[in-house]
């Protein structure tokens, strides 16, 4: 009886405190596996390495790119590089199902809503921060290697980084939610690639109705916000489409986690 009282007394912890602890644990969980570092390294190589290549190209052929902002490199490179970070978001969720790690995870954090919130938050913050830092590094690398052939306007840069932050954050929530929903790494990766790249590009080849359908996919919003020039898309429609997908898939992933057995 005494032990029972002691146990109960020790179990009065606020929801905020539990969330804070779960976020701390999720950070350790994410950075304590090599896969995370590999995905970041691939994204960094793509953005910074190829950013420098764009700068060298500009320096070698001044008439073509003279006076262009270095942020143009980001427009071309952030799109493919985001997939390395979206794959990180997917595997951060699905690896727990692939290895069975979800079983101890839910023993340590049985409040599933808190787990989903903490995990999604941690992945989104890390992917967004890394994306923004790499985008800035990409522009700087292009500017540094271009030997004055490219410019580095601050206002343009801030707009570009804000777009990158939104696209990477929404894309991460979409990718993590697909992971929670499907629980399979292969299935989730294929779904994310289809939604974010393949279908938005492919559907535009098949006439009006297919193009209209493409405009409703999150990849169209991402391509418009990062690269610009997507017929039928505006900034507002891109934001709405990406947010709607992130919220809908987030809800479905939450329902799957909440209502089904932990590891089936």
């Amino acid at each position, binding site marked *: 009886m005494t*032990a*029972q009282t002691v*146990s*109960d007394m*020790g*179990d*009065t*912890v606020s929801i905020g*405190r*539990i969330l804070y*602890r*779960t976020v*701390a*644990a999720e950070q*350790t*969980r994410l950075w*304590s*596996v*090599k*896969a995370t570092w590999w995905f970041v390294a691939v994204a960094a190589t793509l953005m910074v390495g190829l950013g420098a290549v764009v700068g060298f190209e500009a320096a070698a052929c001044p008439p073509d790119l003279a006076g262009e902002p270095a942020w143009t490199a980001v427009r071309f490179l952030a799109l493919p590089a985001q997939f390395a970070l979206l794959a990180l978001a997917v595997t951060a969720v699905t*690896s*727990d199902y692939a*290895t*069975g*790690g*979800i*079983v*101890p995870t*839910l*023993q*340590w*954090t*049985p*409040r*599933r809503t808190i787990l989903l919130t903490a995990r999604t938050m941690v992945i989104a913050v890390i992917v967004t921060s890394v994306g923004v830092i790499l985008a800035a590094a990409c522009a700087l690398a292009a500017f540094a290697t271009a030997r004055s052939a490219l410019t580095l306007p601050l206002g343009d840069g801030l707009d570009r980084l804000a777009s990158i932050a939104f696209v990477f954050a929404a894309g991460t929530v979409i990718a993590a939610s697909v992971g929670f929903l499907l629980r399979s790494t292969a299935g989730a990766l294929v779904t994310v690639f289809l939604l974010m790249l393949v279908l938005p590009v492919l559907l535009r080849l098949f006439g009006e109705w297919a193009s209209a359908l493409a405009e409703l996919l999150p990849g169209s919003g991402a391509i418009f916000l990062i690269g610009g020039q997507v017929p039928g898309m505006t900034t507002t429609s891109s934001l709405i489409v990406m947010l709607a997908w992130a919220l809908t898939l987030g809800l479905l992933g939450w329902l799957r986690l909440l*209502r*089904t*057995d*932990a*590891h*089936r």
Partner: protein
Amino acid sequence: MIEVRGLTKRYGHVLAVDELSFDVGPGKVTGFLGPNGAGKSTTMRMMLGLDRPTSGKALINGRPFASFAEPLRQVGALLDPSFMNPGRTGRNHLRVAAKTNGIPPRRVEQVIEKAGLAGAAGRTIKSYSLGMRQRLGIAAALLAEPRVLLFDEPINGLDLDGVRWIRKLLRQLAEQGRTVLVSSHLMSEVQQTADHLLVIGRGRLIADASTQEILDGLGNRHVRIRSPQPDALFSLLREHGLTVTRIDAHELQVENSTAENIADLAHSFGISLHHVSEVRQSLEDAYLELTNGTVEHQSRQASDPSAEGAR
């Protein structure tokens, strides 16, 4: 204290756990016995809120497991030791667990030491043997010194040293007043460690009694006798209402009696005996008798005509 009430789990048409009800009390080791597919692991997963019961409930210290803010301080559990990310080090696995429940980092080092993993904690789990993973899972279960411990087949993969360590640990935990539930299909192992047994078969509770009661209470103590006058002895024992079986020309087996009773009886009627011995049923025999007909996956016997026909 664990309370299970009407716990049922159905997967489509398969009834994995069928209206299980039992209590597991503190201060003793309770063995959870059953053949493969009996529903032991499913029951444990439902106790831990991992699987959703079709009906019924499981309470730990009076509450559903999922309601605890600091579950590791209430329940330590080892389920399948392969359920870990192999790319993480043992130490980091425990650090993640500790952070979720606000456990200080020094406790991680203490349980690493206690589990005998000090030399391996910095290595990734993929380099661990099954026994080392068991030890790591047990270390995680002990992290916050919980009052309730659930171990699913904890000696699987352990070497002799590990098995002795587990036996000693289970006894220590029970002596400290903790509630300890250990599942196993190794009857001989449970016989050595458990004070109380829950036996299930095909998801149903078959027995809920002390280990001694299971051994004694099934009416399986029998006496073997060798005599130069087996026929006379056979008739005498039958006349006294005892169940007697003839083993061979000179040997008899008497159910539910004692060597003293049989020897006294034979002596009083002038029948000489060459051998009298009491044979107690092993827990394994008791278990097989209890679970008879409830085994989900049974190997075919060589005499099975259908097996013969299939060759």
